[in-house]
């Protein structure tokens, strides 16, 4: 509906712009043509009345020949020049009786005198097909004619009441125009929207990775066909990706499964050798090193398996209710109960308000997060350290913070986790922390590496209280 309104608005606006542009153009063209016509007509500077007035002003009345009216009126040279300039073909002066008392280039077909009816006719229409202009001059009538093909005379007379109601007519016409314009705009907009609707639905479906099959007809047939084709391609790609992901996950799971039995042997025998009193100090130490490395391989296999599953969403979260403070204490207590070396101390600080909070989450996975980060602190501080775990609540988010009194997470590890490439020859093992981040992300939170006051890095997990 929102998009329909948008389309309608755009349609109306563009139609209005179109109409205005065309109207303005036409008015402009009309003015231009009119101006050109007037200029060509030689009346660019003055009206017809003014021209004849100019000519009339050039007449002089001669004192001689009182008996002969013809001799009494004379036009100056300037007057003749005016007649030429104004494109008149001929001219004559009629007295009160309608007789020609002066003439210039008068065509022979024209009579020498005119009655009232003649004057009335030619002043309004034509004189023997000559369009003429008439000027009253001291009771006389100056009549000047153009060529027969020179001009058209139009005489207008309208009833006054009709002229008075022009504004009303105009408003009705404008109103009807606007209504027609709006109706047409709406209709076209709706048609456009209607034809686009299936295409839009198709694009939405594509965005949601749903297969698309649109009817390929109407104005959007070509577009629909393209969308159908894109959908088919995406579907195929998706299937291939899924197959590849599945294959990779199964391959990793298979390899890790096959490694487990030989590793069990390596671990078992190295343990036996470590505890064998018949062996000397050195071989027992070597056996212990094998045992430790085997444990590391076991951890790596588990991490690799889990990380691939988390990455390809092959590990469903088994959600259950838990209290973050309880989980924290339980995990730390487990470390102590498993015989934590005395060189290490793990302290837990849970803010009072966190005790009440119950969240949804995959508890074994979250416990793994804690064990991963605590285990890292222990592994990277062989001389012992103090590990601090802090739990607080901040505006609907639970914040877990962990840092230790050792050098913290190395900067190159943080860089590797943040996606910055490590330097040449540097191998950074970040799988454990990557898993931590994946698990936290899968729970709707984020894991950050925070520099503490001493400048070393600690970790901070922010999880939403409401999740799932």
């Amino acid at each position: 509906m929102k998009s329909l309104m948008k389309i309608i608005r755009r349609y109306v606006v563009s139609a209005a712009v179109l109409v205005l542009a065309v109207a303005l153009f036409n008015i402009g063209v009309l003015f231009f043509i009119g101006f050109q016509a007037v200029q060509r007509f030689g009346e660019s500077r003055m009206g017809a009345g003014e021209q004849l007035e100019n000519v009339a002003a050039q007449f002089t009345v001669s004192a001689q020949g009182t008996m002969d009216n013809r001799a009494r009126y004379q036009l100056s040279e300037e007057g003749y020049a005016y007649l030429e300039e104004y494109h008149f073909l001929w001219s004559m002066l009629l007295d009160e009786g309608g007789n020609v008392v002066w003439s210039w280039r008068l065509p022979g077909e024209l009579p020498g005198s005119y009655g009232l009816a003649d004057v009335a006719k030619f002043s309004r229409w034509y004189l023997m097909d000559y369009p003429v202009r008439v000027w009253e001059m001291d009771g006389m009538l100056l009549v000047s004619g153009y060529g027969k093909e020179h001009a058209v005379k139009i005489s207008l007379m309208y009833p006054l009441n009709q002229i008075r109601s022009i504004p009303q007519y105009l408003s009705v016409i404008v109103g009807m125009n606007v209504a027609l314009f709006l109706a047409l705009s709406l209709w076209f907009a709706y048609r456009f929207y209607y034809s686009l609707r299936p295409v839009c639905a198709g694009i939405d479906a594509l965005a949601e990775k749903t297969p698309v099959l649109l009817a390929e007809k109407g104005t959007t047939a070509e577009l629909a066909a393209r969308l159908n084709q894109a959908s088919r391609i995406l579907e195929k790609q998706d299937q291939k990706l899924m197959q590849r992901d599945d294959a990779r996950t199964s391959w990793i799971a298979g390899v890790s499964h096959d490694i487990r039995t030989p590793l069990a042997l390596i671990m078992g025998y190295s343990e036996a050798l470590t505890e064998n009193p018949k062996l000397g100090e050195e071989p027992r130490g070597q056996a212990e090193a094998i045992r430790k490395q085997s444990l590391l391989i076991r951890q790596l296999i588990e991490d690799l398996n889990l990380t691939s599953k988390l990455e390809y969403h092959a590990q469903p979260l088994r959600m259950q209710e838990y209290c973050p403070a309880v989980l924290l204490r339980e995990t730390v207590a487990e470390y102590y109960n498993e015989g934590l070396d005395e060189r290490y101390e793990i302290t837990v600080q849970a803010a009072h308000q966190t005790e009440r909070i119950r969240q949804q989450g995959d508890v074994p996975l979250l416990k793994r997060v804690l064990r991963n980060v605590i285990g890292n602190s222990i592994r990277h501080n062989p001389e012992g350290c103090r590990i601090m775990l802090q739990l607080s609540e901040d505006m609907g988010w639970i914040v877990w913070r962990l840092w230790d009194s050792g050098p913290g997470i190395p900067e190159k590890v943080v860089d590797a986790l943040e996606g910055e490439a490590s330097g040449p020859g540097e191998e950074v093992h970040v799988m454990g922390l990557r898993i931590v981040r994946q698990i936290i992300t899968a729970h709707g939170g984020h894991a950050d590496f925070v520099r503490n006051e001493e400048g070393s890095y600690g970790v901070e997990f922010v999880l939403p209280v409401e999740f799932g």
Partner: protein
Amino acid sequence: MNLYDSKILLVDDNRELAAMIQNILRRSGYIHVDCAESCVEGLRKFCLEEPQLVILDIMLPDGDGFSLFRKMREKAETPILFLSAKDEDNDRLFGLGLGADDYITKPFLSQELILRVGAVLKRAYFMPGKTGPGSAEEEPVLKLGGHEISFSNASVVYGKKTLSLTAKELQILKKLNENRGKIVTFDALCMAVWGDAYYGYENTLMVHIRHLREKIEDDPSSPKWLLTARGLGYRLKKED
């Protein structure tokens, strides 16, 4: 009969691994450990020898451990422990769902295997009220230095003095004694005493612990037995 006299049957097709496990169990004191390499052999030995515990691999050459498990359970309620390289949650849940007593994934620590085997055997045959190859007697008296605590009487005897324990104190002490030497979190203790809806009882727990110390410690202000694990919970110290 003691724990180490228990007969254990190991079904695994990897001879080397089976030999190693046999070795581990023997070194830890189990005398009767027998091995089978297939489902058929495993079932035959199960019927013939009537072991007290079976350690079962899942992927066997002539079938899978889950089916063998079902067949064995049809014949006897012997505790069975899965030992497998299959570490998928689904496999683990399936195995435990069938009624297995434990599920260990390969590779494992020798100590872990020994502890789990021992725990399963104790649970099955050596707990009070259990019948089987051995019977364990309940130890009703807990000795903490000069203090003797009787769980059945809910009393503490110290010299000639006898103090009685309240029901809550007894529950707390029992829980700590069950996990002796280990830290029991506030949450686990509160849950043991007040059940699931324990929130808000932490301070009450502290009061009970104080009273308990007055009864079982020589000097309650510097306790020797009931120790505090700061920020976590409490621990009942093992005897030196």
